[in-house]
């Protein structure tokens, strides 16, 4: 198994790894749910997932993985049958089993074998067995284990996590996966029809049906499950080498497969996935299984026990043995044999009845694509947007009457825009997967830290670029750890402070001003300004007593490497590394972090992530001879100011009154150090910009127009430039800076503070 692995097998193994990882991901939240809620459905679901994993691993001969999955399955089986009671230890064990499986999968991924996992597998399996023994004894004997029961209650309370029920999204993923499995099965069947002796193909087919059945069971689609189960039985019979009633059962199986595909298609349209006349189809499949001669003999009046005995010594046909033993007359047997033959003939006829062809196919399909290919596609589209701009706004065309060209150009622009939007959505995936992973984390940490926590997930359907999700996984882990370990108080302290003893941590995602905001919020004690300040002073990070620093500046210090106010380093946090990771990773994706906190009421950290990393809608503005781009999303309005609207404060700040509000004015020519057309504000255009809750005005000479802007980074050689988020290439081939609204805003703050210090 380990030495010669051909490409096909590698492919199967890789598929197995991917599937199993998905499964584990589903498993974890479910297991944790067990901690608080032992309803049979959940246990069944977990049982099935372990079962599927065991099946697949067994097929691929990953014995150690199989062993552990089997042990876990045993444990669950006993719990399911009510033979033992679930204790928190079981939940932890099952979690550990998941961890083991993950590790084993990694091993398998690199070495195509799980041989090296033998020791941990032994330990894991042993632990599970012990747990089973222990629980059995405990349940058999007296309930001599009150502390553990206490713990059950405790954990149940502390691990109260969001209910996981089957929602549309899960249903959708069932459909996607189901369609894939059924299609694989269909191909397998078709290939099998041509060459029925290929055990590999058969095994693959069997596995597909088995997984599908498992999925159906998990989602509670009993009719589909029944049919799939029956198909599996037939395939199993073939696999074990017994002949079927007909030479080629593929047609019947295909017919059944079509039914399943129809049902899945129905599901994808939001209807119930029912199978009409299921009994009949089950019968048809049943007919594929040849009645064993013994069964016919029993029907003919031979005592079942005798047949059974004969079967056990079976080396010759059952009939002969029975005759030898004098338990049946030769006539009886030969009649039975004839009957068997006749029955087979008849079944052949019945079975070849044309099955109804599937009319509706499932309408959702997906393929897995290498991320590198996607990236180069998106880059190419970016280049195309630039090329399109260069073409349509070509300076050679200026002043020409080109009615047809313009029409064609507009059409092209529209198509390019659509193409670009499409390309951007390809990379987007919902954050649900990421959030669900945190359930486990919160469960583990809260147990370890002895705190009671409610984790609330909001906006799971929000879609973010896949790379971004990968980049913010670690930061989220660190932020949650911090909230749980430092933010939330222990239950006693919470009660003393008049709060609910159970803390709440909210993890949410939403779209906001063209960005995605991922927020971690807790209702704990909040950040301690004094402690942070004290630490910062003792580390020499700030000069003076820091009384002139704003809350925001102080809170931002927690992101400095090595900064930790924790009195002691626990195994959860306290080394001061985590927040640094958060900051670094966010910088990588040009994201920003907002920290806000109210003492005694909790803290909140927003991760603000740009929606797309590549293209924005931009407004081209001009100052003198220089062009710059503003993100259209930040623009509220633009107008030419009247003299009466403008006020100059004694500090030299310029303010403009827009209806009831006064806004600061920033002159773009000052930021860029350029010569404007005119320094009179009334000759220019004021653009009202919004950055977070802040609004201010930017004065430019002219608004040139709106265009799709492909963001290009300024070279690494230059590094970050404040007030500039990147650059793009204009239609004439020139490079144009993209202004960073937040940076501009900070630049006035900077200017003000400088003026203050100068004064």
């Amino acid at each position, binding site marked *: 198994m380990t030495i010669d692995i051909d490409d096909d097998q590698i492919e199967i193994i890789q598929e197995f790894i991917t599937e199993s990882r998905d499964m584990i991901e589903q498993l974890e939240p479910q297991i944790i749910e067990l901690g608080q809620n032992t309803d049979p459905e959940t246990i069944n679901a977990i049982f099935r997932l372990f079962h599927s994993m065991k099946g697949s691993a067994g097929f691929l001969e990953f014995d150690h993985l199989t062993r552990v999955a089997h042990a876990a399955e045993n444990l669950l089986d006993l719990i399911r049958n009510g033979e033992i009671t679930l204790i928190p230890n079981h939940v932890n064990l099952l979690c550990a089993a998941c961890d083991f499986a993950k590790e084993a999968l990694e091993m398998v991924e690199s070495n195509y074998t799980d041989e090296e996992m033998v020791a941990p597998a032994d330990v894991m399996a042993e632990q599970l067995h012990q747990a089973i023994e222990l629980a059995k004894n405990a349940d058999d004997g007296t309930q001599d284990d009150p502390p553990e029961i206490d713990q059950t209650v405790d954990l149940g309370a502390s691990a109260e996590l969001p209910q996981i029920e089957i929602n549309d999204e899960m249903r959708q993923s069932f459909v996607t996966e189901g369609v894939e499995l059924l299609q694989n099965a269909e191909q397998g069947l078709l290939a099998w029809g041509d060459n029925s002796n290929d055990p590999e193909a058969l095994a693959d087919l069997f596995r597909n049906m088995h997984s599908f059945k498992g999925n159906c069971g998990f989602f509670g689609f009993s009719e589909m499950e029944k049919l799939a189960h029956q198909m599996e039985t037939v395939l199993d019979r073939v696999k074990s080498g017994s002949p079927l009633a007909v030479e080629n059962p593929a047609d019947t199986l295909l017919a059944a497969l079509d039914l399943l595909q129809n049902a899945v298609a129905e599901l994808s349209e939001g209807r119930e996935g029912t199978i009409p006349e299921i009994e009949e189809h089950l019968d048809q499949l049943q007919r594929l299984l040849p009645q064993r001669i013994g069964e016919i003999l029993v029907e003919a009046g031979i005592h079942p026990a005798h047949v059974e005995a004969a079967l056990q010594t079976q080396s010759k046909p059952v009939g002969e043995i029975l005759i030898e033993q004098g338990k049946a007359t030769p006539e009886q047997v030969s009649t039975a044999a004839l009957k068997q033959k006749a029955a087979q003939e008849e079944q052949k006829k019945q079975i070849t009845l044309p099955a109804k062809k599937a009319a509706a196919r499932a309408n959702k399909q997906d393929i897995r694509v290498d991320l590198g290919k996607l990236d180069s596609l998106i880059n190419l589209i970016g*280049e195309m947007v*630039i090329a399109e701009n260069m073409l349509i706004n070509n300076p050679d065309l200026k002043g020409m009457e080109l009615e047809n060209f313009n029409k064609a150009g507009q059409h092209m622009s529209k198509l390019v825009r659509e193409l670009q939007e499409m390309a951007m959505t390809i990379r987007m995936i919902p954050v649900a997967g990421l959030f669900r992973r945190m359930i486990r984390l919160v469960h583990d940490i809260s147990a370890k830290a002895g705190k009671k926590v409610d984790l609330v997930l909001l906006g799971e359907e929000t879609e973010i670029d896949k790379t971004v999700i990968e980049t913010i996984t670690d930061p989220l882990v660190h932020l949650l750890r911090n909230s749980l370990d430092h933010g939330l108080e222990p239950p006693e302290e919470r009660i003393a402070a008049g709060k609910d003893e159970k803390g709440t941590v909210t993890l949410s995602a939403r779209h906001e001003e063209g960005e995605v905001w991922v927020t971690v919020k807790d209702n704990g004690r909040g950040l301690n300004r004094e402690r942070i300040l004290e630490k910062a002073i003792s580390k020499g990070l700030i000069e003076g007593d820091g009384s002139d620093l704003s809350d925001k500046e102080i809170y931002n210090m927690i992101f400095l490497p090595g900064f930790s106010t924790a009195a002691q380093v626990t195994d959860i946090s306290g080394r001061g590394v985590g927040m640094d990771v958060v900051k670094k990773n966010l910088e990588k994706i040009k994201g920003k972090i907002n920290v806000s906190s109210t003492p005694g009421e909790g803290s909140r950290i927003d991760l603000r992530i740009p929606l797309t990393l590549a293209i924005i809608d931009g407004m081209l503005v001009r100052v003198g001879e*220089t062009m710059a781009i503003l993100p259209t999303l930040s623009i509220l309005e633009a107008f030419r100011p009247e003299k009466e609207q403008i006020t100059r404060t004694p500090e030299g700040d310029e303010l403009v009154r827009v209806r009831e509000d006064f806004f600061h004015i920033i002159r773009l020519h000052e*930021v*860029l*150090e350029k010569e404007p057309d005119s320094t009179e504000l009334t000759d220019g255009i004021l653009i009202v910009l919004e950055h977070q809750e802040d609004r201010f005005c930017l004065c430019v000479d002219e608004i040139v127009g709106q265009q799709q802007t492909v963001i*290009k*980074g*300024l*070279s*690494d*050689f*230059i*590094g*970050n*430039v*404040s*007030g*500039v988020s990147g*650059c793009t*290439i204009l239609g004439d*081939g*020139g*490079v*144009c*800076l993209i202004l960073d609204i937040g940076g501009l805003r900070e*630049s006035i703050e*900077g200017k003000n503070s400088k003026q203050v210090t100068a004064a």
Partner: protein
Amino acid sequence: MSGNSNSVKTVVEEFENEDTQKDKYLTFHLAGEDYGIEIRFVTEIIGIQQITEVPDMPTFIRGVINLRGKVIPVMDVRARFKLEARDYDDRTCIIVVNIDGTEVGLVVDEVSEVASIPEKNVEPPPRTGNSTGNLCIQGMGKIDEEVKILLNVQELLFNEEMQKLIGDMTEDQE
């Protein structure tokens, strides 16, 4: 102008094709002196073109240009050596160099030729100066009676002092 740069480009390519870039230097004029840089760093030579200024940069970083869809920063070598500024004309060239994937354009007065200077003809840099420029000098190359100042591109782009300069600028803004 473009004719000039093209011809130099073909010369560069020729040498690259010979698969030996050792001891080959691209030489250029700057404020009356001849300089040379190792040919292996040079990707291409283009005429001067529209440069977009970037705010808050040291004076010798002139801005960025569009090189067939790539945005690369441009350094004025005169300004880098604190030489007297001079208006760009049609002989001004941008030498695009690439060091470990970082592409930077160098503005020089005029590109002359690709010269072969064997190692034995290269003298170590004079040890007198304490100016910043000295660090960037790799050696003095002799071709007959002429002397070429051979620049160390790595130092020119990345030497500590300059990193500090840029660093200061960015910190200032924060």
